[in-house]
Structure formats: structure tokens, C-alpha cells
């Protein structure tokens, strides 16, 4: 029993350290997509991941990364499952993850928009966001494109230091 627990802790630690393929400064734990890591009585490791965006092409890579690292660490039987519920939002990104994003010149997301259940909310004007330039710290920034090089990022520019930067948009 004790050894199963120790295995589970070790397996969890290994899975947590897998880097995200598109934001490699983040681990899967920082990104908040690793939901559970369990070790069964027969030694099988079951890791559960949740996708960020429905069409995120990095999902297969994440799954493969978790399986490979666990196998290389001596876990012979590894299963990586998908969990859809509850859906991932940018609120799952840890404070540590946000710090790392900013350190690497990517503005971290603000709080995810609250989804109102029932009828479609009709306010289409974007909530006024305060995005701080990750390079110079100025709040005098503007969006240049809501869609960037990956599903999760938007393109912004800083009017103070004139540098463009990426921004993990709230979802």
C-alpha cells in the first residue's frame, strides 16, 4: 500500500514535469491540463489530461509526452485518458505558470469570462481588459489580432516600448 502511494507520487511528479509542446516554458501542471495520476494495484499508471481547445493539435503530443516519460521512468503499463468535464479554462493556469509566461515575454490571461447559462448573453462588446506589457510593464497596450500563432494566444503591441507581444487570451 505504502509503495503504491509512493509510486503514485513519483508518477504524478514525472507527468507534471512534461513540458507543453506549444508553450514549452510551462509544464502540463502549470498549464492545468493534468487532472489525475493514479496507479492501480497491478502497477498501471492512469493519467488524465484535458484538452485546452477542441481543435488543439498539441493534445496528441501531450499524451505521447506523458506516456513516453512515464515509460522511460520504469512504469511499464501507462494509460493516458482524456477528460472533457469540467472544461479547461485559462483559470486552470497556476500562479507559477502565469509567472513563467510573463518571464518569457507572454502576457498571462486575466480571469476567464463567466459563462452565463441559459440564454445567450447578448453583450458583444469585449470586456475592457488591462493587459500589461510583459517587457516594460506599461498598461498602454492594444490588441493587433485576437488570433495568434496558436489557438490560445492573441497578438498585442505595447504603445510605450513599441514591442509586439503575445497574450494568452482568456477562455
Amino acid at each position, binding site marked *: 500500500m505504502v509503495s503504491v502511494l509512493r509510486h503514485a507520487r513519483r508518477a504524478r511528479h514525472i507527468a507534471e514535469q512534461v513540458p507543453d509542446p506549444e508553450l514549452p516554458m510551462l509544464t502540463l501542471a502549470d498549464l492545468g491540463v493534468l487532472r489525475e495520476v493514479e496507479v492501480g494495484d497491478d502497477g498501471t499508471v492512469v493519467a488524465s489530461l484535458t484538452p485546452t481547445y477542441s481543435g488543439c493539435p498539441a493534445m496528441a503530443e501531450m499524451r505521447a509526452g506523458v506516456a513516453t516519460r512515464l515509460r522511460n521512468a520504469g512504469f511499464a503499463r501507462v494509460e493516458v*485518458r482524456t477528460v472533457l468535464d469540467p472544461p479547461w479554462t485559462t483559470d486552470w493556469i497556476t500562479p507559477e505558470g502565469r509567472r513563467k509566461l510573463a518571464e518569457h515575454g507572454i502576457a498571462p490571461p486575466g480571469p476567464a469570462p463567466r459563462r452565463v447559462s441559459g*440564454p445567450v448573453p447578448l453583450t458583444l462588446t469585449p470586456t475592457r481588459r488591462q493587459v500589461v506589457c510583459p517587457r516594460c510593464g506599461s498598461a498602454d497596450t492594444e490588441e493587433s*489580432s485576437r*488570433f495568434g500563432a496558436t489557438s490560445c494566444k492573441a497578438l498585442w503591441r505595447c504603445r510605450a516600448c513599441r514591442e509586439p507581444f503575445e497574450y494568452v487570451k482568456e477562455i
Partner: protein
Amino acid sequence: MSDDNVYMALAEGHEDDTRWAYGTGFEDPLHGVDTTVPDGVDAAELAALCVALGDDALVSAQRLAEWTTRAPELEEEMALANIGLDLLGQARLLYSRAGQADGTERGEDAYAYFRDPDDFRNVTLAELPGGDFAFSMARLLVLSSWRLAHFEGLTASPDPVLAAIAAKGVRELTYHRQYAAEWVIRLGDGTEESHRRMRAGLQQVTAYLGELFDAYDARDEVLAVLRQIADAAGLALPEMTRDDEGPGRQGRHTDHLAPLLTELQSVARAHPEATW
């Protein structure tokens, strides 16, 4: 990694075999999800709904992808390709769910590549050629508003898998609608020429609203959005006429669907057993 030939480098063996996000041989996107259809849910109805919503998404994604290299600006190409990618992801999840629910255990590729136009259940608005950029934005506004309302409803689906797919999609669709709405306003409230073309695009799209509302009645939500955006754009909301050739939900399509599918399916059909 081989430096002399980029294609050789791509084909090289890797530690893991799922590195590349294109081609066939993908892992099931619902891998490991509990896929039992709960008691009280009509499996055939669930499968049909998943196929129809998957077809809307796949066909829309293909039309959006056609803008790549042809959009007004690079930023717009990225935006349209990103929106298409979200929809493609929704289609993959929905097709996988359909294959489990209808008992055939077909994978996503069977639905996307190996069905003929008559078997597709997408609304006909999705299959119309991209045409003018203004038309494409009007269509995106209508389809994303309608799909958003539909998905909002489906978050309460008795099927937990479909409910989870919908909950995920709602957040994505909100961004799509926002993007389209901003363009409709920008063009409608722009120059005389952009106003004229935006008005024509909106006119063309409204003729297909009836088919959408027959498939899922989100009349109030969609019309309220259209009215709100048309007001902001200085456009009058056109009379709702009806001249669609559908309904696509019953497999009746315009002549535009077959060529779209021919292109989409050509490689998979030329090499039906291939994985790459």
C-alpha cells in the same frame, strides 16, 4: 534530424509515434472517455445529432480554410484558420461520439472522408462558396450565433459526453461570433463600397435562416444578435426570405457541396488504407 531533406526529417522515426498533427492515424480524440450511452438516451437520435453538428463544423472549417493565402491581411488568415481549427476539433469529437452511439464504432475518418454528399447533414448555408469577404463574415456571424445558442442548450444534454463537448465549444464559439460581429460592423460602417457589400452579404445569408431555425429554433437569440449588430453597423436587417434548396439536415444539398467534399476527401479516398 536529417538536415539535407526536410521531408526525410519529418518521416524519421520518433520516440513516440503521434508527433505530427496532420495525416491520418490520429488517436481517437475521445480516447479514455467513458463512452457508455446512458439509459433513457435514444442512441440513434444522439448519433444523428452528433453527425449533423459535426458536418456543420467540418464543412464550415473547409470553407474558412479556403481563405488561407486569400484573406485581406495575414492577421485575418490566422484568425479564420484558427476558427476553422476550433470547428475541426469540434467535428472530430462529435464524429467520434456518433460512432460510439450508432454502434458502428466507426472512427472520425469514416465520417469525414468516406461518406457521399447525400449522407452529409450540414445546413446548406455552411456549404455555399466563400464568395465575398463580407458574405463570409455575415455567414460566420449567423452560424456562430446559432451554433452558440444550440451548444448552450446542449450543455444540459442527458448525454454527458455531448454535454461536455458543447460546454467546451461554447467558449470557442463566443470568440468566433465576436470576431464576425466586429467585421460586420467595420464593413457596414465603413466606406460606401464596404457598406454596399456588407448589406448584400447580410441579405444573402438571411435567406438561409429558416433552414437553421427548423434544425434548431434559436430564432430569438440569433435575431437579437443580428439586430444588435446591424444597428451598430448602420445596416437594416433584411426581410427574412426563404430560397434555400435544403434542408441539408435531410441530405438535400446545393450543387456546391459535392466539389467541396471531392477536394476534402481526395487524398483519403485515393489511398484508403494509408496512414502518414
